[in-house]
């Protein structure tokens, strides 16, 4: 069974193995699970894996049901499906929870094509918010006194806590991460390759997104 795949990466077409795609997806899943905010999507990885699954499932059907190899492949596919489902579901939970905030930010990001959501996720978020608005209006806001009827989006919006503390492992040497201290004495630390830390998410958010650190 062929396990090399073609994946468009910017202009040049680069060949990367399915194995690499799977590893990337697993890392993306782990980070998404552990980061307070929504991270840029990895739709290309997801679709690539789905393609692999499809391809593999067709091949499994050619094997006898009792064939040991069939069970091994099925088990692997179930493992990958778990990662994909859990990854997408984790994102959906964040999209629902921080809906107003994420949509506001996403509108700005769309202008520069640096969107974090897939088109499907974006549409889902919009419909989700519209449903909430309609429900709140029909049950409460239309029935309260006239000066109370405004739906104050900025008030009901929830925001991810970027100051929350997370555990991370450095994938490579990172110099000069600034830990803010409220007393005004900021501290600067270096993250050596392989070292592990617990610190605020905010100063290392970009490092998670560019892969220099990994949340654990």
């Amino acid at each position, binding site marked *: 069974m062929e396990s090399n795949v073609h994946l468009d990466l910017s202009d040049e077409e680069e060949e990367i193995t399915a194995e690499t795609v799977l590893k990337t997806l697993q890392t993306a899943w782990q980070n998404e699970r552990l980061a307070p905010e929504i991270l840029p999507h990895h739709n290309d990885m997801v679709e690539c894996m789905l393609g692999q699954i499809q391809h593999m499932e067709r091949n499994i059907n050619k094997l006898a049901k009792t064939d040991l190899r069939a069970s091994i492949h099925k088990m692997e596919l179930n493992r990958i499906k778990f990662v994909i489902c859990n990854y997408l579901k984790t994102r959906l939970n964040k999209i629902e929870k921080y809906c107003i905030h994420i949509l506001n930010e996403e509108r700005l990001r769309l202008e520069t094509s640096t969107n974090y959501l897939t088109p499907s996720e974006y549409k889902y978020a919009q419909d989700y918010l519209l449903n909430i608005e309609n429900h709140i209006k029909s049950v409460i806001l239309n029935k309260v006194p006239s000066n109370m009827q405004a739906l104050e989006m900025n*008030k*009901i919006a*929830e*925001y991810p*806590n970027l100051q929350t503390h997370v555990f991370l492992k450095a994938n490579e040497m990172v110099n000069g991460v600034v830990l803010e201290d409220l007393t005004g004495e900021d501290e600067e630390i270096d993250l050596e390759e392989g070292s592990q830390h617990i610190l605020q998410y905010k100063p290392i958010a970009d490092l998670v997104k560019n892969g220099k650190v990994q949340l654990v």
Partner: protein
Amino acid sequence: MENTSYLSIQDILVTNEKVPCKFLHDLPKMGFLDPSATEEDLKAGTHLDIPLWLAESLYSRRPPLISVELPKIYKESYREILGADACTVDMHKLGKYFYEMGCYVAKHDIKGEVSATLMNTFRQRFRMLLSASVSNDSISSMQPLSESERVQAAAAATTERALAMWLQRGESPLTAANMVANHRKRKRAEMEML
């Protein structure tokens, strides 16, 4: 400690707690706020315990309509006890929302010492959370913990239990979803009562 977002029920319950206040101006037709008063208007100079949300709102007017006094758990005498050994204080009785309420009233402390008291108390009492998380007693029987400490201890205990279960047995079986199981339980209980 939960967040203080607009929709947070936790924060709504915290701000429902009463704080002692002194009214600085007459408030026409608000006499009913004082259960002991018989007049229609609330007079300047009245001392009254009112919910925190109302106090915050009256205090934020320009000029402020009230002055807020520190609830006794944040006053000097308790600060000394907390400073000596915070673990001896029964927060369930004395400060159900000790930290959350403290964050709101700290600005009314002229000496500015409430902040340090909150932090030191939390640092000292952290070991109570550590031991509560591995204790076999149910969290609700742990009287001395404040409301948010209980939530944290319960969450830590859940982690401990999951880990202990993982270490003990092989596979964790697939189970019914939480709400499904709870609704079924509730229905059974209701049936038995009939």
